[in-house]
């Protein structure tokens, strides 16, 4: 037993912490808010597992008497989306995946590159440039829709011309590509902000050491900076994934019909006015629509808090 143990052990030590009443209040409140948060999800889950007659006739909170996954199957590949389409939401789900993956990766990598330049290769006026990039964080997206539509239209015409010349439009004019472009542009403000703040605390001596070791601009980025950016990388990916996956405004504006993303399809499914409202199918579709973001949070959530803290302490 060391001298320190001798001093601190024994009867004189009392447990420090809130009293019993305080604890009951704290846990009671936490429980209350957890319930408030979870009730809608529980209702959705229960409803999606009931046959339709049970939904319309029974209690919202009742457990399913005839357990069924049929509404899930229906939502996935039979539900009526819009007027003519009865192939379910599966196609739109993959539309979203095709849009979200490149948009998240490109905006995150560009944000990392911006953060690297804005902190380690500063140039005169870098603060002004960063300030202007932050506009993308604060600008209301409704205000950019029309100018964006004009620009996308120009890109589309360029794509047509390129297709005439080379036989390939380089993806310009394709609505998924359009959405990727829009999300990358409006995601850059946040991703740059995240990485800039993270790299501001990154020791510059490492960059100098790598320079003396003969590493080039991109070698330093790839070999030194990126491998040490895991927490902020995960934060940015979660943030971007959630935002882009859940986006409705750009999706409904710039992608129509078969190429619409999941959120738009869900809206169309729920708003279908022909026949009976299939609440169970709608609920299943809504859960499917929310699942990827939930999945990302569960997988990477523990990094999320850590990464936010890492960026928050300094910079």
């Amino acid at each position, binding site marked *: 037993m060391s001298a320190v143990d001798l001093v601190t052990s024994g009867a004189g030590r009392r447990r420090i912490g809130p009293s019993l009443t305080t604890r009951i209040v704290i846990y009671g409140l936490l429980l209350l808010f957890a319930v408030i948060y979870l009730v809608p999800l529980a209702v959705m889950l229960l409803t999606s597992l009931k046959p339709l007659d049970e939904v319309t006739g029974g209690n919202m909170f009742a457990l399913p008497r005839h357990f069924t996954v049929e509404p899930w199957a229906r939502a996935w590949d039979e539900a009526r989306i819009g007027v003519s389409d009865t192939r379910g939401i599966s196609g739109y789900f993959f539309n979203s995946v095709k849009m979200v993956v490149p948009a998240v990766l490109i905006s995150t990598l560009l944000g990392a590159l911006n953060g690297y330049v804005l902190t380690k290769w500063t140039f005169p006026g870098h603060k002004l440039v960063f300030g202007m990039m932050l506009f993308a964080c604060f600008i209301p997206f409704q205000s950019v829709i029309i100018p964006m539509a004009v620009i996308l239209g120009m890109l589309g015409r360029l794509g047509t011309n390129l297709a005439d010349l080379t036989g390939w439009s380089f993806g310009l004019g394709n609505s998924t590509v359009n959405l990727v472009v829009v999300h990358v542009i409006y995601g850059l403000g946040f991703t740059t902000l995240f990485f800039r703040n993270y790299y501001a605390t990154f020791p510059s001596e490492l960059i100098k050491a790598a320079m003396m070791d003969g590493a080039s601009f991109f070698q330093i980025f790839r*070999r030194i900076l990126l491998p040490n950016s895991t927490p902020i990388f995960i934060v940015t990916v979660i943030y971007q994934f959630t935002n882009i996956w859940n986006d409705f405004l750009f999706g409904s504006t710039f992608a129509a019909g078969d190429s619409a993303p999941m959120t738009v399809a869900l809206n169309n499914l729920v708003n279908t006015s022909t026949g009976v409202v299939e609440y169970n199918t709608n609920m299943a579709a809504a859960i499917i629509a929310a699942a990827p973001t939930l999945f990302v949070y569960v997988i990477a959530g523990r990094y999320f808090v850590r990464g936010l803290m890492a960026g928050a302490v300094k910079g």
Partner: protein
Amino acid sequence: MATLEISALRKRFGTIEVLKDIDIALEKGGFLVLVGPSGCGKSTLLNTIAGLEPISSGEIRIGDQVVNHLHPSKRDIAMVFQSYALYPNMSVAENIGFGMEMRGVAKPDREKAIASVAKTLQIEHLLDRRPSQLSGGQRQRVAMGRALVRRPSIFLFDEPLSNLDAKLRVDMRLEIKRLHQATGATIVYVTHDQMEAMTLATKIAVLKNGELQQVGSPDEVYNRPANIFVADFMGSPAMNFLRGAITRTDGKRHIALASKDALPMMIPIPASADATRLNEGDQVILGIRPEAVNDGESVDRNARSVVRFSANVDIIEPAGSDTFVVLKIGGKEVTARMRADADVRVGQSNTFALNLDKAVLFDPTTTCRI
């Protein structure tokens, strides 16, 4: 021929001149220590040699090549950083080999070089570890390994010991000295610690506010400081400074030390001073190191010029190996370094001796040594 030659170097940040007309030359195998208080420009000077900071004017030569506009990696130098700057995502071996990898050295050659450096520094058992799994001293060794493996013509050290605890610092200091003796490397070393400067250097450059105060061997800088700043900065406890004026008594010129008492203490002009430059009535500042102030018995027997006097002891600071005694001469506090077992008591009068062989004179207006 000098390995490193800095001539008329100037560095400006905007309108602020942080390095003013620096001239230093370092021969091959030399150990140059740049020392000065924080903000004196010593780290900036090192960064300009490394190429991490551009210079405003002047010239830096390494070997026979002007390197002003060369990229840091092309200057044939290696640097050990204050924070060691080890890449956290790489193992020790990868850290040491990164520079070679960037220069496209083949893997077998790289491994051979890493192994030989690891052997020199006794870090062979650490090669697979990450920097986060190493202690401060081990990180220091790895940082030196990363520099050594390049076999550069100059090593740059930027306050490499300042992050270590006191004991480890002394160990690593010895280690660096041993490394220098064993490899004959040319080293430029930045520190704010005058003790490190004295023990390591073959040549010390003292800087203040971006101006070079003195360049010389440790002995020169310590015993013949160019000005009051250098005298005060080097040595701990600091040199004692006493004001006085040149007077003539008994046909000989003396220094009358300023005093609040009626009778000023008269002492001969130290041999180190250029007496021809002194006139009667000139104001001077006498600088004398604590070890040259002693009790009557233990004063250096070979000293040619000794002044004895008695004074009251104000404060005693036993330091184990020595005892520091604070006394007053003419109302001004003076620190004496005495034997550990010196027989002194606070408040008692004692006989002290000034060894004037070790004393220097300064001009109070220019602060330069006379």
